[in-house]
């Protein structure tokens, strides 16, 4: 007997999701698809999911959570807090692979700086300063992670570093006169497997005014794949 699941998944004769979308929008115009869709549970399911996605009608019990999530997303992605470079979120998908049991962590990263050139305007203007090389651990690389490091800004007297939870709660705030910050035991304790944090740093001049800041960098700690236990046979 063949594995039955394969009969229930998308088949080579199933139209693409774009084609299904055009059928869902105007069944008359895409009438040639009707025989397949009427016979294919998979395509019917895709259309139903697509429609419920597009309609986005929360049920009563989903309303509060949906609203809160949407406003958190807006706070997270609206410029200037988010990066202003279109499609240029070079740090997206950044993964730090850390052995789950390791307490020793190391990473070196240069940051993309954005300088606020007009602090008085209602809508601040951000200008990208040339990108700095980033040293990102390769996927699966066994590394120790003990400090954040970023590119020095010439006029900076001090740097302020923040780690925030996904909901925007500040998990850690620290300052450093140099372009790096060693993590203490308490901060390392925040870097738990599967946890997502956002890391950002600001450069301050002698008067404490922000003269440059990094993009908000998403950090997700991926647990190392567990080693198979040894067995005595």
């Amino acid at each position, binding site marked *: 007997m063949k594995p039955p*699941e394969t009969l229930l998944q998308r088949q080579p004769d199933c139209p693409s999701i774009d084609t299904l979308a055009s059928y869902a929008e105007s069944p008359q115009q895409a009438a040639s698809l009707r025989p397949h869709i009427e016979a294919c549970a998979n395509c*019917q399911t895709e259309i*139903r999911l697509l429609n*419920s996605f*597009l309609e986005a009608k929360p049920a009563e019990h989903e309303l509060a959570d949906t609203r809160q999530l949407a406003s958190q997303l807006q706070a*997270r992605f609206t410029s200037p807090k988010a990066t202003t*470079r279109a*499609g240029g979120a070079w740090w*997206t998908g950044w993964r730090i692979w850390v052995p789950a049991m390791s307490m020793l962590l190391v990473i070196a990263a240069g940051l993309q700086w954005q300088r606020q050139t007009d602090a008085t305007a209602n809508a601040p203007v951000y200008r990208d300063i040339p990108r700095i090389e980033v040293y990102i651990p390769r996927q699966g690389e066994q590394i120790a992670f003990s400090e954040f490091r970023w590119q020095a800004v010439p006029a900076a007297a001090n740097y302020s570093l923040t780690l925030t939870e*996904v909901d925007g709660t500040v998990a850690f705030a620290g300052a450093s006169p140099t372009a790096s910050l060693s993590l203490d035991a308490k901060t390392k304790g925040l870097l738990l497997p599967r946890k997502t944090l956002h890391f950002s740093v600001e450069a301050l001049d002698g008067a404490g005014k922000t003269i440059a800041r990094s993009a908000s960098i998403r950090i997700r700690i991926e647990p190392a794949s567990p080693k198979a236990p040894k067995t005595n046979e």
Partner: protein
Amino acid sequence: MLQHTDEELVVLIQTDPSPARYQDELFRRHYDRVALWCLRYTGDRDAALDAAQEVFLRVQKGLRHFAGQAKFSTWLFTIARNYCFNELSRTRRQAEVSIDAPETAELANEPTMPVDEALSRAEQLQQAREWMTKLLSEEERQAYSLHYGEGIPISTVTRLLGLSNPSGAKAHLVSARRKLSEAVRRWKVGHETP
């Protein structure tokens, strides 16, 4: 900016030297639907926020390659769907096993779509589609293909399909299996060689 379609905003993001405001507007239009999708998929507000952020990060990354033949909203759906169904489900499935364990165990006693191996794959597919279309209700069919085809946990299927009956997708899966098993039994009787 409000007069621009999503697809026009994408072009502006790709070409304008100050694209941030266009991206803000484009994303603002879709926060609700991605939030709701992720909430339904994960069933948990914190996990939904994490998933929704990942979806928008992927959109941000992929925007420059968005060709514009497709609708932006369909592309966004594909990203959200694939992220949840393929990547998130891999890590979540294990965690949800304990939640779904009693109902899954109960449903796992029989093969899911037993089709005779004497049939070719194409014949099996045609037979499976015919039974599902003729014998199952719309909800049974969709719950069945999401749970057994995509491996989506029962509780998640219930939320994704917005099922409001007390036992959610489980009731539809149980009745779908009963109908399909009966169809297979009758098919075998009709095709048995004396």
